[in-house]
């Protein structure tokens, strides 16, 4: 008898445990709204996943609210999904579970997997549509280096969303004291680094992960890290070698160093231990805050030029998944168009950490006035004409990661430049091939 009670108890526990799971799940229900008492139109709801928090996140939400207000029949739910790492992990899961959002922020080398698997929506039919298409004037006004990066086989799958660029940070007072003008070429940079390296200080500092973002040095040397045609890395090519020789040469000479345990240039720069540094514009707010207190007088300038002038732009694109309904996709397209409207991109450019996405926005008198107060975005705008972005190949990360390892190996003296680059080339090629096997068609 008692055993029966035991059994019943256990079963009861089981049921109650499982039963807990019947929470009400939030389902999106379109509300019916009546317009003028006649036409009944449904509000289209859609999800937008992003990775912006803090002030950038607040600004994005503000613009999305504005969009929702302007468009009575569209409601975008914007969800912050953590940083890029978490956002991309979540997209992966959602792709398998078939619960992808309608639009998302994404790096192009991550979007490749979705394009390959026919999960991304070709934006061409929207862009060029005679009715709902984007105004050609605006379309042609988006800087090509940004606009055409989201292309696979000649089709647009993503468009620039939040963009910044790599910049040269420098200590104004230190350069003045040494009677140096702001370097604009590799030679001037090397010279400045040499002059500034004294009293235990090292003139030039790079982020610890400089090898990951190394491509701009390579592009400036006239080389590339990836062959888009053959879809293979070209880490052992001449341009890459020249770039590595330049940077590691300065490091070995003791006039440049990686930020080490500080990780980012902000530490050494704000303490006045280094005077010139390279990092992306996402470093601007920290530099501002850190230097305000240490009293370092700093400024930013365009990247220096080597054989070529080239500026790496960073940040993500916006992409649409084809798993949503046509209504949702149409609604999402309205938002994408909205994003490039002059007043919107202007506000985004002024109130977020990113730049306006059209020349009209960038040259707008209001933006010019804004730049007078905060000149930190001037170099990014100035570099727009030489903008490029990192390659889109599947597992493009392998190229960057192996280039970082190579950089560390060369600096540590474990390998020569040729050996390190060759190993990196082999590993990156293998790892990129390896990734393809997971998306066989």
């Amino acid at each position: 008898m008692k055993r029966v009670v035991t059994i019943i108890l256990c079963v009861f526990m089981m049921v109650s445990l499982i039963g807990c799971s019947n929470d009400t799940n939030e389902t999106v229900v379109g509300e019916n709204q009546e317009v003028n008492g006649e036409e009944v139109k449904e509000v289209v709801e859609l999800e937008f996943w992003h990775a912006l928090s803090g002030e950038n996140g607040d600004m994005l939400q503000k613009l999305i609210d504005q969009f929702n207000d302007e468009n009575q029949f569209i409601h975008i739910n914007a969800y912050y999904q953590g940083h890029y790492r978490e956002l991309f992990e979540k997209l992966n899961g959602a792709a398998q579970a078939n619960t992808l959002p309608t639009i998302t922020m994404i790096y192009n080398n991550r979007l490749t997997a979705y394009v390959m698997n026919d999960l991304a929506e070709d934006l061409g039919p929207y862009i060029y549509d005679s009715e709902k298409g984007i105004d050609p004037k605006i379309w042609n006004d988006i800087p090509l280096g940004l606009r055409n990066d989201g292309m696979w086989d000649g089709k647009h799958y993503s468009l620039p969303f939040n963009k910044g660029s790599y910049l040269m940070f420098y200590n104004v007072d230190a350069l003045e004291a040494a009677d140096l003008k702001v370097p604009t070429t590799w030679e001037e940079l090397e010279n400045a680094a040499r002059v500034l390296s004294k009293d235990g200080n090292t003139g030039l500092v790079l982020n610890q992960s400089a090898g990951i973002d190394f491509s701009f040095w390579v592009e400036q040397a006239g080389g590339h890290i990836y062959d888009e045609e053959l879809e293979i890395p070209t880490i052992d090519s001449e341009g890459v070698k020249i770039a590595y020789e330049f940077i590691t040469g300065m490091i070995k000479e003791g006039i440049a160093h990686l930020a080490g345990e500080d990780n980012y240039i902000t530490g050494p720069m704000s303490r006045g231990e280094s005077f010139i540094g390279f990092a992306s514009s996402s470093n601007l707010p920290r530099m501002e805050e850190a230097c305000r207190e240490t009293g370092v007088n700093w400024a930013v300038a365009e990247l220096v030029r080597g054989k070529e002038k080239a500026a790496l732009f960073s940040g993500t694109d916006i992409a649409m998944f084809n798993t949503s309904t046509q209504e949702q996709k149409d609604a999402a397209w309205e938002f994408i168009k909205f994003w490039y409207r002059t007043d919107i991109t202007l506000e985004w450019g002024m109130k977020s950490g990113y730049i306006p996405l059209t020349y009209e926005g960038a040259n707008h008198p209001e933006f010019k006035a804004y730049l007078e107060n905060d000149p930190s975005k001037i170099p990014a705008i100035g570099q727009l004409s030489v903008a490029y972005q990192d390659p889109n190949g599947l597992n493009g990360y392998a190229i960057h990661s192996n280039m970082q390892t190579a950089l560390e190996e060369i600096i540590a003296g474990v390998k020569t430049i040729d050996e390190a680059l060759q190993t990196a080339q082999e590993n990156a090629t293998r790892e990129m091939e390896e990734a393809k096997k997971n998306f066989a068609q």
Partner: protein
Amino acid sequence: MKKENNLKNAALGILYLLPAMVILGVFQIYPIIKVFLMSFYTRYNYFRHIVFEYGVDNYIQLANDPKFILALKNTSIFVFVMVPTSIIISLFIATLLNSNVRFKKLFRNIYFLPFVTSTVAIAMVWRWIFHSKHGILNYGLGFIGIDPIPWLIDPKWAMVSLIILSVWKTLGYNILIILTGLQNIDKQYYMASKIDGANSWKRLTRVTIPLLSPTLFFVSITSLIGAFKVFSEVYALFEKRPGPLNSCLTMVYYIYDKLNNQFSYGVAAAASVVLFIIILIITLIQFLIGKRFVHYK
């Protein structure tokens, strides 16, 4: 008659196990089986669950990947240094805390603190402590005449730093478990040994450790398993990288990298299976040793 009894017992046993088995089955074992299968997919589509070809390519890939070999090596060093260090120190401190000490409670609370904090936040603090130029550790070492050590920059010291952080982080947990175990030991045994005139070392080796053996057994197994899976400490301490010259590239970092950065799900799955087998073998060995040396009362 006996057979019937066994059946009845089995039904009863399963019933008691059911709640745990359902949850673990759905959210742990089922995914693990999927991972196991995935490690044998050589050509397939991750998003759509279509498999075109099975094989052992992923394992061959692993065997030929110097990074994986390095990860194996790094993880082994980490485990076999970190776990014994942590257990010996915590056993030592736990017995001290269990003896007649004033402010026992306060000390116990202090030692447990590290275990409570989030790894992300505290790893950041350790980055300052380890800072070669301005860190408090080198500052302290400077007092006793030791030259600054490049803790996080030099590949050799990077592993040492990781071990220090991990020992510090796991100490509180080990002490807690061991203290709980010590409470289980009847005071009479101590009395008896005292009467027999045993000194404190003998008491430790003849009474405490044997009677504590189930607890120590548990601690060593769980610590070892935990140590083999070290990842978030690396990720946080070296700002998302595997340390200078991949010196702290551990197995789970490797798996994580393949999984979340490199789209190599098959290889990640294969690496997990290898890790799993290694841990399983070592755990089984521990169980075998345990059978001989662990005394349940």
